[in-house]
């Protein structure tokens, strides 16, 4: 991924090079690139005068950050207690089987990343899956493939004219 230094700098400047804004800056970088590119972190480290050890410590501690590039789409399966008792683990397994990856990873074609979340707070409509910010309620094993296909075909349609 092409990391534009100006962009990273603007994120840092927004917080006046304040080291205590480290998490907020990382969130901006993550939102822009969908992961934390190494070059961006190096620039950040110099600008806010924080050692790389601390930045990596924070980046790996919080689950919102990823040091690896993520896929085009992110499917997040809720692992909350309510979803768990309603069959959440089976849904996750179905996603893993369908995509051929384990949770926390990205498919080889970089189409999908599969994530889990501790709880989305939508316990009444579990099991819940969020794909690219869209909530899918009461997901069953059978609904997994159609959900994935919905996002995949969109991609293929876009690709078609090329």
């Amino acid at each position, binding site marked *: 991924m092409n990391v534009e230094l100006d962009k990273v700098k603007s994120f840092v400047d927004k917080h006046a090079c304040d080291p*205590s804004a480290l998490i907020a800056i990382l969130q901006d970088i993550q939102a822009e690139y969908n992961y934390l590119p190494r070059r961006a972190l190096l620039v950040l480290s110099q600008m806010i005068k924080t050692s790389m050890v601390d930045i990596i410590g924070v980046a790996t501690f919080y689950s919102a950050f990823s040091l690896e590039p993520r896929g085009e789409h992110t499917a997040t399966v809720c692992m909350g207690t309510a979803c768990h008792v309603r069959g959440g683990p089976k849904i996750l397994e179905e996603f893993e089987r369908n995509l051929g990856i384990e949770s926390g990873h990205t498919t080889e074609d970089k189409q999908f990343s599969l994530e889990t979340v501790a709880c989305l707070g939508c316990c009444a409509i579990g099991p819940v899956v969020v794909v690219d910010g869209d909530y899918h309620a009461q997901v069953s094993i059978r609904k997994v493939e159609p959900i994935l296909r919905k996002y995949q075909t969109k991609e293929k349609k876009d690709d078609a004219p090329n």
Partner: protein
Amino acid sequence: MHQIKSPQELREAAAEQKRQREAQQKAVLTVSAGTCGQARGSLDVIESLRKIVKEQSLEDRVEVKLTGCHGFCEAEPNIIIQPQNIFYQHVKPNDAAQIIEDTILNNQIIEKLLYKEPTSGKEAIKEEDISFYTKQNRLVLGDNALIEPTQLNEYFSIGGYLALAQVLEDMEPEEVITSILDAGLRGRGGAGFPTGRKWKLTRTVEADKKYIICNADEGDPGAYMDRSLMEGNPHRVLEGMIIGGYAIGADEGFVYIRDEYPLALKHITRAIEQAEEAGVLGENILGSSFSFKVNIVKGAGAFVCGEETALMRSIEGKVGEPRQRPPFPAVSGLWKRPTNINNVETWANVPLIILRGAQWYSEIGTEGSKGTKIFSLVGKINNTGLVEVPMGITLREIIYDIGGGIPGGKQFKAVQTGGPSGGCLPAEKLDLPIDYESLTQAGSIMGSGGMIVMDEDTCMVDVSKYFLNFLRDESCGKCLSCREGTQRMWEVVSDICDGNGKESDIQLLEELAVAVKDASMCGLGQTAANPVLSTLRYFREEYDAPIKDQRCPAGVCKALISYSIVAENCTGCMACLKACPEGAITGVLKEVHVLNQEKCIKCGACFEVCKFDAIKIE
């Protein structure tokens, strides 16, 4: 909105909004549109309602209002029609035309949209007829259904910021604290520390600067009342914080909000902007000498940051590792300044206490636990949703009267309260009156109010494994006892679930659980063993079954179960055959199918599709 310059001016503005609300001649359709509602399509419902209103030029007769969560999540998307207070559930966009035509214009009830009691099958027309609502006392949550959360005027119209006006005009900071103390309000986030005492401590410490924090990092899986409050009534939380700031002598506050709550983040951000514009937040609030500003900090996905010292480190931009207390945050907190931290629900209770008085508030609840508490009633329960009840109500009342019992005629097995730090309580504890002390005594905790109901199909060893898996990942990893302890407990319980358990494992688990509880530094570690200890205490036989007989009575633990086809019930419909991802089921149409155990990966797809009870789990 123009700046309000005095408490008197605010009172007038609020009175005017209230008058307008009461003079309202239109029919008001309030559509619940919290995150859950939106996930179920409430925005589409609103859109089609508004379209029809516009097409038929009914703007002066009908108003469509987008509100936060009404709490009755099972019925989403739902609509309440005022003034009649008609309650419609599971509304779809194509019901819109009929609602306008029949109910609004011709005053007819649409039967198919009415709520039916799960037990009696009786239809309820109005909100107050529904058993889900009758035993509740929705002091905090109730306003969600009345107002559009993104409009400050709406909040004014139900008496918003009047508590702040009263505090600034008539009350010394100490009086505010006394009022909170007398009310007996205790922290709604977990441990239940008396809020007034915490405020008093922070007030008495000398410092050049003090901070206030609103803990909106609602991390307990299965609890979402804070999200609902932030989405549906953000100004109320903000008002509580401003009053708290005044009482403690802080001029800056932080809202630490979970990353996973985008809508709540949006609404609280907008609320802060509006409040600043209106002069109820910022420099010289309502023309007084008191100034207060609020910043928002987004969490980045770490459960342990719900612990106060970890949360403060996270705001400072560091790794969320809890630290040793003392010094307590009241003495040395955020950037080593005295800091008072309360959670969303606690802050939302504050304006209520100021407006209606400590005496009134302290009459609700039990001896040691005052007021109401919001629980999120989820899991295997008919009426899923947020319920606000006075302290001291029994579990049975919540689960059976409000929750409508267990769906599908299944047997109640346990209720899990308090999130990963809590425990599972069995049927014999159903008549336990709920307050902070009684729950702790029973081996669970109040926590933030998650209440997950489990039925006979839930395996308690699996539940305990679930929480350990959660905790071994969410532990910050500093204390050996918590990091290694949760990991090792998870290993032992996993072995039991896989049928590799030994009889000595139970004693090992008990010993380890006690050591983890004793030796860990922060609340996460000290309570990490609760799910294990409580399931061992109440559901010991569920541990014995996989260890002694290699079976999982609830049919959950994969290594101990097998799927098979019941020949008598199988109609040969081929549904399971098509659903099986591994091709383990063979057969032809209208003939009994055969399941090949060697190919079966126990994914459960066949069980899910079979309509004839022909798939058996053993």
